[in-house]
């Protein structure tokens, strides 16, 4: 595998709120290489989102180190974390999290506005096949369409890392297929790694590596020597 874009060493996250401490993530170590597709599998509550949030600069590890481009993200100040999220990361969520009072195009433009070297927002919308729906508000779009807007919102920033937390969790199979296909297309186009959390083992067949999580532990990393093209996945 080529040189790592991101290196994690013994990442742990412990939540202390509410009395009993919760070990959401225990000593996870891994690397992420450019343009690879990582699938994270695991039961609910196993620490997948915690892991992804730490990678994305949305949360900080209790202990451990996370290096991105030679810099220690785990030691970043709040300000540096904001810059990291702004310039390096593209996030996609299960429930889309679009701004309801902004139209599809405006949602994309909002992300573009704060990022240096962003793509043009209409172009990003066109890439997800929604060029015609720019003037619609999220409430006027279907779930699948909303998720595609949220993909456009992530790619418009030309991110170095593409992080998706159960992107198909709220979608039917038809839409799930479209979304996964788009995600991998974008990975190819931008050349950035994509990390996808999912419960769907079928999607896992398309990944280069699969992280298996259980009780906060990154139990196993399996390598998929022959990723299945999205078109061939069985939905």
């Amino acid at each position, binding site marked *: 595998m080529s040189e790592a874009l991101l290196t994690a060493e013994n990442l742990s996250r412990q939540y202390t709120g509410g009395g009993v401490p919760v070990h959401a993530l225990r000593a996870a170590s891994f690397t992420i290489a450019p343009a690879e597709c990582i699938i994270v599998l695991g039961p609910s509550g196993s620490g997948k989102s915690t892991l992804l949030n730490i990678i994305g600069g949305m*949360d900080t590890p209790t202990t451990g180190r996370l290096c991105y481009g030679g810099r220690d993200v785990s030691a970043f100040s709040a300000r540096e974390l904001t810059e990291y*999220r*702004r310039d390096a*990361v593209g996030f996609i*969520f299960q429930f889309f999290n679009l701004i309801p009072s*902004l139209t599809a195009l*405006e949602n994309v433009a909002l992300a573009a*506005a704060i990022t240096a070297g962003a793509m043009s927002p209409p172009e990003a919308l066109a890439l997800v096949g929604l060029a015609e729906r720019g003037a619609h508000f999220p409430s006027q779009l279907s779930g699948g369409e909303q998720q595609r807007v949220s993909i456009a919102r992530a790619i418009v920033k030309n991110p170095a890392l593409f992080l998706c937390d159960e992107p198909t969790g709220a979608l039917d199979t038809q839409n799930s297929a479209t979304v996964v296909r788009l995600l991998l297309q974008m990975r190819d186009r931008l050349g950035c790694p994509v990390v996808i959390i999912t419960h769907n083992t079928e999607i896992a067949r398309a990944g280069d590596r699969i992280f298996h999580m259980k009780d906060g532990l990154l139990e196993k990393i399996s390598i998929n020597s022959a990723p299945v093209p999205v078109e061939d996945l069985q939905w």
Partner: protein
Amino acid sequence: MVKLLGLKMLRDMGRSKAVYIICALVVTIGFSGYSLMSIAYERLMDTRDAFFSATDFSTAFADVEQAPLAVAGRLAAVPGVSVAEGRLTDTARVQALRWHEQSGGKREELLAGEAELLLISTRPEGMNRPYLNAGSLPRAGRLETVLGAGFAAAHGLRPGDAVSLIIGGQATELEVCGIGVSPENIYLVKDLADMLPDLSSYDGAFLHYDTLAALLGREGAANSFAFTLWPGAGIDDVKAAVEDILRPYVCYRVYDRADHVSTAMLQAELDQLQSMAGVIPVLFLLVAAVILYITLFRLVEQQRVQIGALLSLGFSHRAISLHFACFGAATGLLGGVAGGASGILCAVPIWEYYLTFYSMPALGAGFGAAYPYLFYSALAGALFCGAIGWLAARGVARLQPAEALQPAAPPAGKLTPLERLPWTRELLTIPGLVGLRGVFRNGRRSLFSLVGIACAYMMIASLVSMNSMVDIFIYDELTEVEQQDFTVYFNAPVAWADARAAVSHPEVRRAELVLDVGVTCKSPVASLEGTLKGLEVGGELLRLADAAGRPLALAEGGAIITAHMAAALELGPGDWLEVESPGPAGQTMRLPVAGVTGQYMNSTVYVPLRLAAEFQRTNGACNSLLVAGTEQARRDVADRLADAARFTLAEGRLAKIDKMNAAMGSMLFILYYMAFAGVAIGFAVIFTGSLVCFEEMKREMATMITLGLNSRDCLEVISSGQWLLTFGGVILGLPLTWAATEAMVRTMSGDMYTIPNYLSGEALVRATVLTLVAVVLSNAVIHRRLRRITPVDIMRERN
């Protein structure tokens, strides 16, 4: 980015525009009050200064019995005095008015003795000239006068008409050569206890010195000196020297123009305007702050996941807090601009109202200087409300990005303190219980609602009680204290028997003698100019009563003083009061205070008639008569006395009340308007609280509707909480109201009068009822919204 977030803000605000509009309106009221009063104040100051300089209003005065005019030269030589001028003043009864044939307009005939004019001598080149609205200044040696504009207007007099006056005991006809005002007759009251000037019966009239001196037979003499001080010099710097020079001529008083009654009243008004301009916006901004905070705090909670999404995109906490601060700033800006603009617009009529009230000419700079207030209001509104928004969004700064993305943890269910009381569980329905728990669950917001309701209650109660204050303050004097039908005044003391004979008439039921003496009242801590009023013991036409309405009886050897005097001199029953008559005789008398009346407008010491007469060394004399009798009796007495030189005026009390009503009309309108504003604001606070609560509990209510509860039951969820908060708010509002009225009363009270903190139980009850009405109204509006809920939509909606 700014543009897009701005767009988001406008759309978000549009979704609950009612709240932002209400809030902007409250801010508008506050700033319109602020700019209105500030502009009126500045403009009035300008007008006053321009008026003073246009008339060469002197900076100080000295009243003497009689001195040669030439003494002015010696006064001018006193260090600190630059110019001095001697003049004559006197009062004259108006005997008749004569209109020129051609002059149209209303012609109001006068009863004998009904009107009096204050004659002031003037010279074309001298100080204190009248400012002419029409005509020209009186010429030397001509029987001409410049009439006070108020009197002229009341009787339809114009240059060319004539007035017949009794001057120096003789009827003299003067041609009206001009109509005008001077700072000395802008607020002219014959008796300080009259409070409001009545220019139709008492105004100034300006005659050339030579004319007046000849008519009074006092050529070359002066009984008043006007002088101007060096810049920077004060009355105290020259008082002693001036008194020394004037002592041989019986000097009564040396005073600053600030102590001239006519201008002192204007000054009191200006001071009041200035302090109210500071208080009003603070009150309203406080309420606006509560509404905004509740609304924005809720908005931030509601947009938690959106905040998470923005953070994940790389927006900083600062940028997001700023975004929410902008909600406040936009509301404040809107309110500030609207407030500043409406204040500027309304300042013109208010200023004109003051000019009419004080009969001042419209002088001074234009309203151009008012425009900065638009800017100040806009800036202050935006900054203040922006800061409130920032505070409300403080939660954002504490939110970790990952945390924000998860919906807030559901609040722990626990029993509220109220439920621990034994009987509450039985009393409350399940929806009521949900509502109650909601109140305690959201502690901070409930606290704010509570404070908001308390503020609203305070505003309603203190504004409503302002009305009763005015009642006590002004009308009680005329309706409760004074019982006579009319009063006959004499210019000089008259023997008791003569006075009684003057009003003996079959239709006169009762006549009581009064002797008024101008005095200086002293206590160990302060002194005050006032009136010693001798009344017949056992009299019925002047009913003295204490603040609680209990009658006070005059007794030999004791004095009853007014509440204003008691407050100013810090005296109470049992203390000793020292009374000193001015001028050369300078008698003093020490009296124990036997009682304090409920009068707040005047400084009077009531003593038995005999005591007053002894004090003035005019045994067996009086100078006015209170008469109970018919209107016919009044007319007959006026006719009978028409030729008596010393008699001056017989005015009907009812006519006085009518005039007072007319003069107070606009003031009452302002008070009712403010009370209305108070109610509207109370409603605003309560409604916003309910609305936010409604938004918050929408999902719970949708669930209840799905379970088969109807909209009434759901309303109970909201209303039970609101009733509880309202109850608490009213209780908290009681001490707040007391504090607010106390503060208001302190800012309004001055040298001329004391305003009592008259917070009546009735005002509190009225305010409570109005507050409850606001809750009922707001419930009705919420109920309408509840009926439009479609549970499916809400259940599907994800924040």
